[in-house]
């Protein structure tokens, strides 16, 4: 391992600018002549718009323009994944207008935009818009929306149903249940979350009359996807006249994947007002307009034989999609959820039904993990419940059912083929690090202090690096899922990498540079990584689903292969040797078995100053682009163990220990990987103990600020103990699997299993997330002082 290559914990190249306040986030950009947009949003969850009168607002000081839905006749925001129901019918796909057309369907639904010289003027003028609302009954829970008589959101979605989807062999599952020795049943809720990256969304639209080119600066995880969706579907702008720039982006966690109304509004309005237009969300707008996550209600049943072997899993889920279809919303509770329900186990038969509902809430889409945390939560909660019912140690029950180490490639009953893994080793590592064996003593000691101590295990698997484009296309994806990289070698041997992935905290500028340093033998200072500008980078799909390294890194490897192959031809010419005899190592092309060599930089120079060059056979230049379409998903997996203590008097949960053992395949920068794991764990623990998006019955988001929505803070979280064990991915050139989402997938189930373990002696059954002090106190009170509950 070189000091800057694969496996080295090198310091991040991007840190300096962030540590000195010199990052460039979208709101930091100020274009000449820039004006400001403010959106008027619905205060009602469901209402007809009888009249929207913008006359007074238009006359307000500093106002340049006001546009309502009737003024902005453009295409709707598109959905990127078509799901078919059980009966073969395509999903209901109602329009998703950029500005409300006659009706609003959630609090925060945009109605009009005011553009003024200053933000304060735009905000003041928005108060002068007169809207005549006819409020309608609202429905906020997915289950309620599907009941007969529920308020109806869209003409195109009868009964508020988007689709009724299924996966797996129902007959095989029914047959397995018929012969089961034991059946465990569980009803659980996967609580709705708000992604809340610390940087609120922002967008600047600009139009250059001389060139006819539009530029959109936006807080996006995938600028080319935004360009494609906005250009082709919403505004009908030719892509060569549309540039999308996603500069430094302050976290995304999924919520910045999607194409949002505000991006289309500032781009469309820029030529109308003849000035660049900036919009930046206030945090309250983030809560009311950023796509939210999770929100499943599930009934699950696990059939076991007399030895505790899993025979079948049956799952029925209602997923809440919110008021409109966000860009990838439809795929999350289906192909990113149902396909993961085999988990790490040999369960031979799995059947899952998912009904997705429209409700008067903010749209729901992918949030860190996206479908896979929901699947993991179902499996790991029911496995733990089964272990408790059968009085088998939960680790032992898992071991009995793990996919054996020699069974790969392993075909699950829910469509996926796992290429590699070793769940026994990560379980053992985590148990050892967590001192699982010593837990009984710690529980006893805690009891003496009046505390209820519990331990919880969760194993998980995820499918990352989505996916062969043809497979995804057959399942309804309306996009390709490859990635691109361009490697531009400069005449004196320094290198710029242009990647189609996007970094919004993951440190690609460092990790990708390490890949180049490792392969080309260059110091990191000679390598720059560029992303986020559609005028610079080749067409790429951005970053989500832990795909950047497995898919984008693989594209970069392919581009480097092309550079090295061309370099060998040039070196053969320079060294007057046969191409087949040229080796490339440590930044030098050499003739095998001799000390004759030329450095990488000399070859690059020859490529651009081709005086002594095989010009008849070879084009000058050393600049290669590669596209990589994955052959399969990658399957990171591992084991998380949580240990918690509950204060009986207050119901407060303290996470006293958290251990993770993860298999991410080959690791490029262990320091960055550790940070990714920690961040995921914090969000997973946040979901389990603190975070909850709560709507009132009439559709007001009660948790609409950081005062009400409880984000984990430094003094809420433990000091994580994390380790990795690698089994290499077998189908990508780096053997990498991805690490961005794992923490958020395993942690909720580990924490809630620990809570259940702590409360089991009191006879308390399953609790739903978040396990707040109130919820736990009430459960304890109901058992110990029934009159108080």
């Amino acid at each position, binding site marked *: 391992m070189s000091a800057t290559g694969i496996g080295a914990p090198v310091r991040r190249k991007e*840190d300096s600018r962030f*540590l*000195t*306040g010199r990052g460039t986030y979208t709101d930091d950009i100020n274009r000449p002549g820039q004006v400001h947009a403010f959106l008027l949003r619905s205060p009602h969850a469901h209402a007809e718009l009888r009249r929207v009168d913008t006359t007074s607002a238009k006359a307000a000081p500093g106002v340049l323009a006001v546009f309502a839905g009737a003024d902005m006749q453009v295409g709707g925001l598109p959905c990127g994944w078509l799901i078919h129901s059980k009966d073969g019918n395509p999903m209901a796909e109602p329009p998703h207008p950029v500005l409300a057309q006659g009706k609003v369907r959630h609090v925060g639904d945009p109605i009009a935009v005011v553009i003024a010289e200053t933000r304060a003027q735009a905000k003041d003028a928005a108060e002068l818009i007169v809207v005549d609302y006819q409020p309608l009954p609202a429905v906020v829970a997915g289950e309620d929306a599907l009941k007969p008589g529920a308020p109806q959101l869209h003409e195109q979605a009868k009964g508020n149903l988007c689709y009724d989807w299924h996966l797996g062999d129902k007959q095989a599952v029914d047959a397995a249940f018929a012969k089961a020795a034991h059946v465990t049943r569980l009803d659980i809720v996967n609580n709705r979350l708000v992604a809340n990256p610390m*940087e609120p969304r922002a967008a600047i639209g600009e139009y250059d009359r001389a060139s006819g080119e539009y530029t959109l600066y936006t807080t996006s995880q995938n600028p080319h996807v935004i360009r494609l969706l906005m250009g082709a579907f919403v505004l009908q702008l030719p892509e060569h006249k549309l540039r999308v720039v996603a500069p430094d982006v302050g976290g995304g966690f999924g919520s910045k994947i999607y194409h949002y109304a505000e991006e289309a509004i500032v781009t469309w309005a820029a030529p109308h007002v003849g000035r660049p237009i900036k919009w930046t969300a206030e945090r309250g707008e983030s809560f009311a307009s950023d796509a939210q996550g999770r929100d499943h209600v599930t009934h699950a049943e696990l059939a076991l034989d007399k030895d505790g072997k899993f025979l079948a899993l049956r799952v029925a889920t209602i997923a809440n999609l919110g008021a409109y279809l966000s860009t990838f919303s439809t795929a999350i509770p289906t192909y990113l959820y149902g396909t993961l329900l085999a988990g790490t186990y040999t369960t031979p038969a799995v059947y899952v039904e998912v009904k997705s509902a429209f409700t008067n809430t903010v749209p729901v889409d992918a949030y860190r993990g996206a479908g896979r945390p929901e699947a993991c939560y179902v499996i790991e909660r029911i496995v733990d419940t089964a272990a408790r019912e059968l009085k088998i140690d939960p680790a032992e029950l898992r071991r009995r059912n793990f996919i054996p180490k020699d069974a790969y490639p392993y075909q699950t009953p829910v469509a996926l083929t796992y290429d590699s893994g070793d769940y026994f080793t990560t379980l053992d590592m985590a148990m050892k690090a967590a001192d699982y064996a010593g837990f009984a003593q710690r529980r006893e000691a805690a009891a003496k202090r009046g505390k209820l101590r519990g331990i919880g295990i969760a194993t998980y698997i995820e499918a990352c690096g989505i996916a062969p484009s043809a497979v995804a296309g057959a399942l309804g994806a309306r996009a390709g899922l490859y990635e691109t990289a361009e490697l531009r070698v400069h005449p004196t041997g320094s290198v710029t990498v242009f990647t189609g992935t996007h970094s919004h905290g993951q440190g690609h500028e460092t990790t990708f540079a390490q890949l180049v340093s490792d392969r080309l033998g260059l110091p990191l200072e000679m390598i720059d990584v560029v992303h986020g500008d559609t005028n610079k980078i080749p067409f790429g799909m951005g970053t989500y689903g832990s795909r950047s390294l497995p898919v984008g890194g693989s594209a970069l490897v392919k581009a480097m292969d092309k550079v090295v192959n061309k370099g060998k031809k040039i070196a053969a010419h320079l060294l007057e040797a046969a191409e087949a005899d040229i080796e490339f190592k440590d930044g030098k092309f050499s003739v095998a078995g001799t000390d004759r060599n030329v450095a990488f930089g000399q070859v690059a120079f020859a490529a651009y100053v081709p005086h002594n060059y095989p010009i008849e056979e070879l084009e000058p230049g050393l600049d290669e682009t590669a596209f990589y379409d994955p052959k399969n998903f990658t399957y990171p997996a591992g084991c998380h163990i949580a240990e918690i203590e509950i204060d009986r008097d207050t119901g407060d949960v303290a996470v006293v220990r958290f251990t993770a053992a993860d298999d991410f395949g080959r690791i490029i920068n262990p320091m960055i990987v550790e940070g990714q794991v920690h961040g995921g764990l914090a969000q997973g623990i946040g979901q389990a103990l603190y975070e909850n998006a709560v709507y009132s019955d009439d559709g007001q988001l009660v948790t609409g600020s950081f005062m009400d929505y409880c*984000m984990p803070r430094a003094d809420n979280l433990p000091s994580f103990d994390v380790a990795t064990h690698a089994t290499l991915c077998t189908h990508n050139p780096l053997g990498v699997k991805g690490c961005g989402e794992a923490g958020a997938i395993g942690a909720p189930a580990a924490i809630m299993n620990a809570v259940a373990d702590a409360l089991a002696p009191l006879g308390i059954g399953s609790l739903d997330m978040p396990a707040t002090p109130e919820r736990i106190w009430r459960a304890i009170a109901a058992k110990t002082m029934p009159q108080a509950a």
Partner: protein
Amino acid sequence: MSQHEITLTVNGRRHAARVAARLTLVDFLRDELRLTGTHAGCEHGVCGACSVLLDGRPVRSCLIFAVQAEGAAITTVEGLAPEPGALGVLQDSFCEAHGLQCGFCTPGMLIAAEALLRRTLSPSEEEIREAIGGNLCRCTGYKQIVEAIRIAAERLGGANLAPGTDHG
């Protein structure tokens, strides 16, 4: 909207300006002085991204009007480095311990940590977690931030600096 004349010092440099009464300090720093290192994360004083030092004390610049900073000495993240292009001990420790990912909360974290280290160079883990307890980070899970501040305290303590010294 009434306008007010203010004079204040930001990162050692004196500024005189005419500002609207409703203008917050964070908007003044970002929009008028173009010091965009200070970030607005929630505008209601809960996330800490906009933290700056006002006469040495950490404050939320989204909860203070620019007019209230009349006569004050403000330090923003841009004023923490010892010289352009260099990192101070605290900043360097954040880099070493991977105490930042997306970088958006980082200026506020640095300010909170700077204020702590001006108070003590031997903080316990609990004190560190308490000191940054008012600053939200969505990326790191905080462990590596805590480690960064511990490293900085150790280095600054080892350098035998008197309390109250500007650690930059």
